[in-house]
Structure formats: C-alpha cells, structure tokens
C-alpha cells in the first residue's frame, strides 16, 4: 500500500472498529450482569410471595388449570413454579414439569425445560417443611441484554462513517506539509538547487527535508565542479587554438619558404598538443568515481609497470633516457587495471618528458606495510612551493619548455584517490629530480 492517506485511514478505522467492538462487548457483559441480578432478585421475590401465599393451603393438593395470563409487558417473563413437601409435589404452575426442576439445595441453578434453558431458584420455608422452586426462561434475559447493548451503541455505529469521512479530511490536512514539501522539491532542477526553507517544516518531516538539503548541497557542488571543469577545459583549448590560427596565418602570408616551413611545422605541433589536451580531458572525464570499486580485481603492479615501460621505451630511447624497474616481486593491489596502467603511464611520461637527455627514470615497488610505488627521475624536480599547484588541473610549470596539458598529475591523483591510495611528490633523496610516490595503506 503506497498511499499514506489510505494507510492512515485504514489503521485508524481498524483501530476504531476494535475499540468499538471492545466497548460493545463490555456494555453487553455489563448489562447482562445487571439484568441477571435484577431478574434473580425478581425470582427471589416471586418465590417469597409464593411461599407466603401457599402457606395457607398446606397439605391441599391444588392443581391449577388454566392460569396463564396474557403477557402485558414486553419484558414480562413467563414464570413456572413447583411447591414440594419432601418428595410430594404439592403445587405447580402449568408451565412447570411434574418432576423437580432442580436439586433440593437452596439457591440458583440452570436447567433445560422443553429444550430451553431456564433459571431455577430453590427455596425452603423457614421451618424446612416446604420447598419451592421458581423458574424463568433465560432467553428473555439474553435478548434484553442484546437489546440494551445495541440501543446504547447504535449512535456510535451511525457515527462511524461520519468519523471515517472526518478522518479522511483530517489526514489530508495533516499531510499538507508533505504536499508542500513535494511541490518545493518538484521545483528543483539542475540549475536551481537552493535548500528548502526549514521554517514551518514539522519535526517529523524535518529529517527528510534536512537530508534533501544535504543532497541538494552535494549535487550543487558536483554540478558546480562540472561546470567549472567544462569552463576551464574550454579556456584551456583557447590558447592552443589561438596558436594554431596564428601559425597558419603566418604560414599563409609568408613569402619566405623557410619561414613558411617552420610555421607549418608549428601548426602540426599545435595540432598534436591540442589532441593530447583533448585526450587527457577525456581520460579525466572517464576516470569516473561511479565506476570505481565495483569492477576491481587483483592487479599485479609489477607486471603492469613492465608493460607500460615497454610501451614508453621508444620515447625514452629517443631522449637516451634509461628506464629501470627494481625488484622482481609481484605486488598485488585491488583496482582497475586500465586505470592503474594510465596512472603509471602518466607518471612515467612526465618523468621522461622532464628528464634531460641521458638521465634515468627508476620505478621501485615495495610490498611491506602496504604497497608503495615510486617513480624517480633525474629531471629538475618540482619546487616545494609548486608541489601542491601541479596537482591542480591545467597548472603548468613555467619555463619548463614542455607543453604538457597540465592534466597529467591531476589524472594520477584522481586515479590514486579512487583506489584509496595517496600520491606524494617530493624531491629525490639524492637532491635532484622528482620522486612521485603512490602508496596504498596496508590492509
């Protein structure tokens, strides 16, 4: 059942119904009890009167014939009686059987006469000479009790539908704050995520509204980040595009063959640079937290490093840079092999790019107290003041002479974070060159 209103109404109706039934049962029990007392008293009175009147006719066997008097009141009861002297039936009413209606013990008892239940009162006179038994059918009492109960509860029974209608409307009114909240939430879009006003929000709904506000804030942040990234990316494309356009125009106008040639080569360099920037942007967009952790499996970092280094060997060879992979042990971490390979590629590509010809790039893997991956180069390193900045998107170190996208280390950091690892940059122990360390906590 999905409607809160229906649910409330059903619960309230069932509850009311049960309450009504309990009330009915109590009323019925109570009236029955009172009626029993009343009728028993009446029975006792009848016995008393009969005993009194029959005293004068002791030892006379009188058989009453037609002594049935028509019923003049709806609650008037039929009465049967017998008067016994020891075991002789002295007197009995027409309704009474010829055998004793109950045992000769004083007091009330119940018996079946002509297939109907009767209440019998047995009494002895003061001198213990006569026994009188007065009886009355129980049917009357039962129907009277039912009648009283019904009469008393009838108004509430009629009131029930009215009550249901009232419940329907009050539940609707009670749910009004939820309805308002729904309208408020409905107005929210990707561009309009301001928090819901918390005034007038009932305390039962407040946690929900608060949770929604938190969600809105997170969404807003995510959207903001996305927007900023897109804007940054677009701006980053402008400079390479400007360079392309100007170089192309220079080539077009140049009357000097050598100059034209240089300009055209610059155009090609510019295209390569723009292509790399676009690729890196796409990579960064693809390293999506949504896909993280789900498809993770055990990846051998050592094997992965060997593969990536083999891929980059031509690049290193062209700059006469020697690449070394320390330690032959397999190092397993849980992760996505494509992303980890990207991480390695970016770190190594950076190292090769910034290391002068004839230098070294060393990869070290350690597996004690968590896995650690270290990439050392013999380049200029990164000044301490710039170490945090290089991790920002699009930050390039000036005067490096290299035209990176400014995204490489951002990508490395993002992948490391998604894998629960930490990226640290420092200068090589030897004092020269960069040491990039990616460390996984020991699990």
């Amino acid at each position, binding site marked *: 059942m999905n409607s809160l209103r229906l649910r409330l109404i059903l619960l309230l109706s069932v509850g009311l119904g049960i309450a009504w039934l309990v009330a009915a049962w109590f009323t019925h029990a109570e009236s029955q009890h009172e009626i029993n007392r009343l009728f028993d008293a009446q029975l006792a009175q009848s016995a008393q009167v009969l005993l009194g009147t029959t005293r004068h006719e002791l030892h006379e066997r009188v058989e009453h014939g037609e002594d049935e008097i028509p019923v003049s009141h709806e609650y008037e009861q039929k009465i049967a009686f017998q008067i016994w002297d020891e075991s002789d039936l002295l007197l009995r009413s027409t309704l009474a059987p010829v055998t004793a209606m109950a045992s000769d013990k004083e007091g009330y008892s119940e018996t079946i006469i002509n297939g109907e239940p009767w209440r019998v009162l047995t009494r002895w006179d003061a001198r213990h000479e006569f026994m009188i038994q007065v009886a009355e059918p129980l049917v009357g009492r039962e129907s009277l009790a039912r009648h009283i109960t019904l009469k008393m509860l009838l108004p509430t029974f009629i009131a029930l539908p009215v009550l249901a209608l009232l419940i329907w409307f009050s539940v609707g009114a009670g749910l009004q704050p939820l309805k308002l909240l729904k309208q408020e939430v409905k107005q929210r879009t990707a561009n309009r995520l301001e928090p819901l006003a918390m005034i007038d929000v009932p305390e039962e709904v407040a946690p929900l509204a608060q949770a929604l506000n938190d969600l809105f804030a997170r969404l807003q942040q995510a959207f903001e980040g996305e927007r900023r990234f897109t804007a940054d990316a677009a*701006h*980053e494309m*402008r*400079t*390479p*595009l*400007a*360079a*392309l*356009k*100007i*170089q192309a*125009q*220079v080539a077009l*106008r*140049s009357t000097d063959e050598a*100059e034209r040639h*240089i*300009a055209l080569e*610059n155009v090609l*360099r*510019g295209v390569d*640079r723009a292509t790399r920037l676009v690729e890196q942007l796409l990579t960064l967009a693809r390293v999506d937290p949504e896909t993280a952790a789900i498809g993770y499996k055990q990846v051998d970092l050592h094997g992965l490093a060997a593969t990536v280094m083999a891929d980059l060997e031509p690049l290193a060879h062209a700059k006469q840079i020697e690449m070394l992979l320390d330690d032959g042990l397999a190092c397993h971490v849980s992760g996505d092999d494509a992303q980890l390979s990207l991480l390695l590629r970016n770190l190594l590509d950076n190292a090769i790019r910034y290391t002068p010809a004839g230098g070294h790039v060393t990869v070290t893997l350690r597996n004690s107290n968590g896995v650690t991956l270290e990439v050392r180069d013999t380049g200029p390193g990164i000044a301490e003041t710039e170490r945090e900045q290089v991790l920002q998107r699009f930050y390039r170190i*000036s*005067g490096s*002479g290299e*035209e990176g996208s400014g995204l490489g280390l951002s990508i490395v950091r993002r992948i490391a974070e998604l894998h629960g690892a930490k990226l640290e940059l420092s200068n090589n122990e030897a004092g020269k060159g960069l040491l990039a360390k990616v460390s996984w906590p020991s699990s």
Partner: protein
Amino acid sequence: MRVLLVEDDALLGDGVRAGLKQAGFAVDWTQDGQTAKLALETEEYAVMVLDLGLPKLSGTDLLKWLRGRKSKLPVLILTARDTVVDRVAGLNAGADDYLIKPFDLDELIARLHALLRRSVGQVTQTLQHGDIQLTSSTHQVSKNGQTVELSAREFTLLHELLLHVGRVQSREQLEQHLYGWGEEVESNSVEVHVHHLRRKLGAELIRTLRGVGYVIDKEASRS
C-alpha cells in the same frame, strides 16, 4: 615600430612574433612578467601585447605596475577568459584594448595600428604628405595615386618618419623600430632602406643630417 610581446605559450608567442614581423613590426618577445618588466624599464616600445595569464608576474600586475609609473604605453591584452568581469578587470587595470583567444592576426595588427595612431593623436589611418599617401592598416603607400611596392622594413621606416614629420630621427631610434630582440641588425641597413625609399618615392623626400639622423620636412605650403 617596436612591440613588446608578453606571451608564455611558446607556440602562440612564436606565431604572433612571426606574424607581427611580417607586418613590419619589430618584436621583442618575453615569456614571463618579470622579464617583461625588465624590458619595459630598459627599452622604448610603441605598444605592448600582453597575455594576462603569465607566470611569475601576472599580466594584470604588470599593467598596474606600468600605469603606476605613469606610462602611457598603449597596451593590448590577450585573454582566454571572455566573461565581462574578466574583460572589465583587464581594462580597469589599464589596458587600452583586448582580444579574446583565438584571434585573427589581421585583427591584431589592425588594432595595434589603431592604438598607435591614437597614441600619436592621429585619427585617420592614412598619413598624407604631399603627393605621398600611407595607409597603415593595409600597408599601402601610393604616390600620385599610384601604388608603390615597399618591403615591410621600408614601410616601417617611412611610417616612423611620417609620424614625426619635422623631427629628426636618429639612426639608433629608427633601428629600434626595425629590429626586435635576437634579430641581427645589418650594418648600414637604415641607409640602405632610406636609399630604396628615395629611389621609389623621390630623392627629395627624406633629408639626411649627417651624423644626426633623418627627417621628412614639413610641407612649406599645402598644394
């Protein structure tokens, strides 16, 4: 005309330098704000092309420093940021004009010429001297309505002299307008260019003051 180009991006800076050189500007190119500041302190420039996102010293800070020195040097800024806020910030910092990347080389040159004209109080883009007419934006020179073909350096030299009619320009001054940093100044080059100009436009146009420099005299009377 000597231009200081401050652009940190190697490819773009190289392209603008080559393009402006083709258009007859002498270009000094620096890739950071600090070097640009040094250049501005030591050299004379007719105009500056400034990228705002610079390492070491930002373009905006450089501009503020420049204007703080009461320099009237015309400055055109290049920016990748195109929001009104960014543009206003650049202009408020003291820029005279701006271009948003990517831009057109022709537009850059035309805007630089406009800035130069304004800085010498000239409104139209055509300079007239006797029967000689020079249009800076199109790089065209004509004599008696006939177009005269001039090289970029010859044009710059004529332009300089026409901008300062009646005032003697020294050989060093003229060389500064002809050559940027790293460009080898050919000896006697000014003499050679003046010689070519005289041959193409008439011997009497440019007067030599031996040991001092060159001048185009004011017209005695308007013909």
